[in-house]
């Protein structure tokens, strides 16, 4: 279980998070929705240790992670698919996957996970020798997810995985998220596409101006009139 307790953080001197509290249950999909600038990405950055909150605590299986570096956090089984994919453009697809497994020592496990990622995304296997920068946007997103899975995480943080993708590919991304959950992994999903995100999520949080203002199951939030008005564009 991942728990954020009253986390506040500044970004470039401006306070962006004003006491975010949320809980991510193991084996479930949790989503954070909210407008641009509400602090969704900042929340993920705090969890990954890229940004250091000045207040509050981040607990992972009860262990305080707040002051750990990114490397330690990745080692503990948390990984993130960053917004905008961020694949290594001049490395081959297969080298990108190697980088995902950078901290792992178990060669057999890495090989197994690589096979599994290729099974999940057959297109990556056919393009495994190609430079990642030459892939299409959708393929790059698959690679970014596959790369994150190569670290054998317990929880996957995903920042706007559907952004900039064609509608057909968006559906594919959400199918992949569900499959990752079926593999027993936990997902924390940040999305602009609130309808789709709440549709697959077990639990959702609404973030507004750096605070969690609402939470509930995916369907509860989908049917909440305030949420509908503000984020679902009905």
């Amino acid at each position, binding site marked *: 279980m991942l728990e954020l307790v009253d986390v506040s953080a500044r970004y470039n001197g401006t306070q962006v998070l004003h006491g975010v509290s949320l809980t991510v249950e193991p084996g479930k999909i949790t989503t954070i929705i909210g407008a641009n600038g509400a602090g969704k990405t900042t929340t993920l950055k705090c969890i*990954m240790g*890229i940004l250091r909150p000045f207040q509050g605590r981040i607990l992972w299986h009860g262990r305080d992670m707040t002051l750990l570096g*990114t*490397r330690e956090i*990745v*080692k503990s089984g948390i*990984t*993130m698919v*960053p917004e905008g994919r*961020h*694949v*290594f*453009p*001049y*490395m081959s697809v297969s*080298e990108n996957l*190697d*980088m*995902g497994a*950078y*901290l792992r020592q178990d060669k057999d496990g890495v090989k197994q996970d690589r096979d599994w990622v290729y099974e999940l995304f057959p297109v990556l296997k056919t393009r495994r020798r190609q*430079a990642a*920068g*030459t*892939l*299409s*946007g959708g393929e*790059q997103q698959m690679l970014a997810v596959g*790369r994150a899975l190569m*670290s054998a995480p317990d929880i996957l943080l995903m920042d706007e995985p559907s952004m*900039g993708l064609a509608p057909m590919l968006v559906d594919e991304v959400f199918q992949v998220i569900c499959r990752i959950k079926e593999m027993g992994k936990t997902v924390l999903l940040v999305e602009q596409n609130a309808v789709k995100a709440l549709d697959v999520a077990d639990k959702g949080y609404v973030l507004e101006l750096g605070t969690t203002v609402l939470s509930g199951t995916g369907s509860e939030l989908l049917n909440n009139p305030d949420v509908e008005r503000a984020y679902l564009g009905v």
Partner: protein
Amino acid sequence: MYYLANGLPIGAIYALVALGYSLIYASAGVLNWSQGDMVMLGAYIGYSLHRLLGLNYVLSLLISMLVVACVGMLVERTVLHSLRKRSSPSINVVIGTLGVAIICRNVALAIWGPDAQPFPSPVGSTPINIGNLRVLPQDILIVALGVALMLLLQYFLKYTREGKALRAVAQDRMAASLMGVDVGKADMLAFAASAAMGAAAGILIAPLFFVTFNMGAGIGLKGFVAAVVGGLGNIPGAIAGGFFLGLIESLASGKISSGYRDAIAFSVLIMVLWLKPSGLFSRTTKETV
């Protein structure tokens, strides 16, 4: 053919120095103006080991590379790392490396004195006839060892875990840290490898010239030109740029006048900046959105 034979050795030297600029620029995003002085330190340490202590030339080269690599790491810690921690802008780091360059020159002056030191070639100075070409054995040694080191660096970057991590940092720093790469350590590695390449260039070129405390300024600048011509931050480009510059200089001194050699080298730089600012050998892969 004559110009090729003449341009290759100096081209290899420029390529080694250029690699240093590009490696650091790619990973840490700064220009390291002390690169030329790593060449000088390498030459002096090689001189001390080989000439004064009588150590074998190749062994001296390796030890000197190792020592100068440590100097490179020290530069990274004291200048890049400590300034970055205070979130200083990149220009401050660049000025810091300029300071390092001047400190290096002063220290070298204090240790080895102001006189130029001769460094006879370990393979003698009797030219060898290859076909109708007369080549200095040191020239062959420069090209052979220089190319070997470049291949070694390529192998390191392409196939080792730490090398791949360094490339990852160069391509996307944030993503690399998300993979668990210690980006600070990667910076240190880049500085160490760059300094070592520079040191090798210093010992290899020493037998062709004298070793002086300010030899780094000229070679450092030429190496920088080579790096820019090849596309700053592009590793294969730096090698190509080095050899390209060596050949241009060789042609210029032969066909026009050796007095114009440097002027022509910098004219090439300006032309490249004009016509193809990303470098003559820049990568053609377009990033897809």
